[in-house]
């Protein structure tokens, strides 16, 4: 397929189909994350990216036969290696005999949170989640390092006039969409907060909430123009927030260290260990949500802002 646009839409549908598989397998949290990230934000970010690169793929000069051969050999070796493993979901697999019963039986007394997925993610495997948050933060920093937009040093008055004229000329045909978006965006932001703090009792948690929050801001940016969005959301403030999220997560761990226990051992946070677990999970989910939302917004502003600057240069030259 040469047309990248069609490829993006097909990958969006693929993300949606895998979310339906997860729903059919009764895994609610994973389906939630896949639907919001795989089918939503990835499509939007990739669309913003191909406005910079162009719509069709460059023709390949040679047929990649050697690469295909390497992939086939490696894949068949991997499949041969998995033939020895027990069947998917069989009762004798070590996962189901040692690891899963411990989590399922003991999670309620040790952590006290009804959603076992959240307790595993945030408490039993808190260190892995810390790694994920740092990876997301690093991705945001990478995008900033490579694509950071150089702002024109204009005066404040010039900026405001340019913004008003741009708003009137380019986006007036979006009137109905703007009014509907004004009704919807507060609701979406509120729903993101609900998902964030309801992650203990139902599906949800920090990652999904951050993605939904970023999606609301992306909707606002698309409909009202890049310059208005830059006035609403200060670029340096968002970068600060991305760092604050990782910092909150790390400080919870360091506080546990200072109290004399292991890193990220939440029972050190309060007198009653279960209350300590609740507080710890609340704080780290907040850190995760803040970082994910800020990094997604940073990436989108960098992709879309570059396209707007290119357009401005073309409009000024022509």
């Amino acid at each position, binding site marked *: 397929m040469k047309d990248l646009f069609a490829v993006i839409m097909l990958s969006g549908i693929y993300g949606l189909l895998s979310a339906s598989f997860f729903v059919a397998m009764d895994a609610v949290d994973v389906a939630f994350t896949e639907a919001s990230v795989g089918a939503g934000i990835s499509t939007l970010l990739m669309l913003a990216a191909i406005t910079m690169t162009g719509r069709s793929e460059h023709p390949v000069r040679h047929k990649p036969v050697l690469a295909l051969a390497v992939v086939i050999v490696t894949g068949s070796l991997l499949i041969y290696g998995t033939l020895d493993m027990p069947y998917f979901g069989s009762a004798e697999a070590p996962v189901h005999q040692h690891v899963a019963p411990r989590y399922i039986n003991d999670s309620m007394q040790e952590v006290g949170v009804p959603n076992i997925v959240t307790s595993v993610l945030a408490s039993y495997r808190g260190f892995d989640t810390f790694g994920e948050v740092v990876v997301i933060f690093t991705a945001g920093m990478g995008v900033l390092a490579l694509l950071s937009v150089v702002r024109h040093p204009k005066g404040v008055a010039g900026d405001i006039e340019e913004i008003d004229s741009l708003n009137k000329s380019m986006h007036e045909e979006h009137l*109905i*969409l703007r009014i*509907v978006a004004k009704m*919807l965006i507060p609701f979406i932001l509120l729903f993101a907060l609900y998902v964030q703090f309801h992650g203990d009792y139902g599906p949800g948690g920090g990652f999904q909430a951050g993605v939904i929050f970023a999606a609301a801001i992306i909707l606002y940016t698309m409909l009202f123009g890049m310059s208005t969005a830059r006035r609403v959301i200060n670029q340096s403030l968002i970068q600060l927030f991305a760092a604050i999220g990782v910092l909150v997560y790390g400080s919870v761990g360091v506080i546990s260290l200072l109290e004399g226990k292991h890193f990220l051992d939440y029972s050190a946070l309060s007198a009653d260990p279960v209350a300590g677990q609740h507080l710890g999970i609340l704080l780290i989910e907040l850190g995760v949500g803040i970082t994910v939302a800020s990094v997604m917004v940073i990436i989108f502003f960098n992709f879309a802002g570059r396209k707007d600057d290119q357009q401005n240069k073309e409009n000024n030259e022509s």
Partner: protein
Amino acid sequence: MDSLLNISSALFLLIGSFLCISGGVGILRFPDFYTRMHAAGVTDTLATAMILIGLMLQNPDGLVILKLMMILLMTLIISPTASHALASAAVHNNLMPELDKKEDNEKVTSSNP
């Protein structure tokens, strides 16, 4: 009372699925983009409303009804807006609908008894 709820819920679900399938058939068989959009847009909203009302009648439990009503309200606002956006983008990019020509119309009206 229980069986009345069951029967009405089944009725709403039946109407909803019928509208849904007719929308699907329409999107496959209509000749032009704008006619297909009629099929997709109208039946999307109405079928969703019918099926969600059927689900609401089936399980009268507070929070679930509230969430279903939120989905219903959001779909009623979002679905027509998306259709409008799609149609205005298509017109803006010069996708013209297929119109009847004038001579064909006169031939048809003169040949009909």
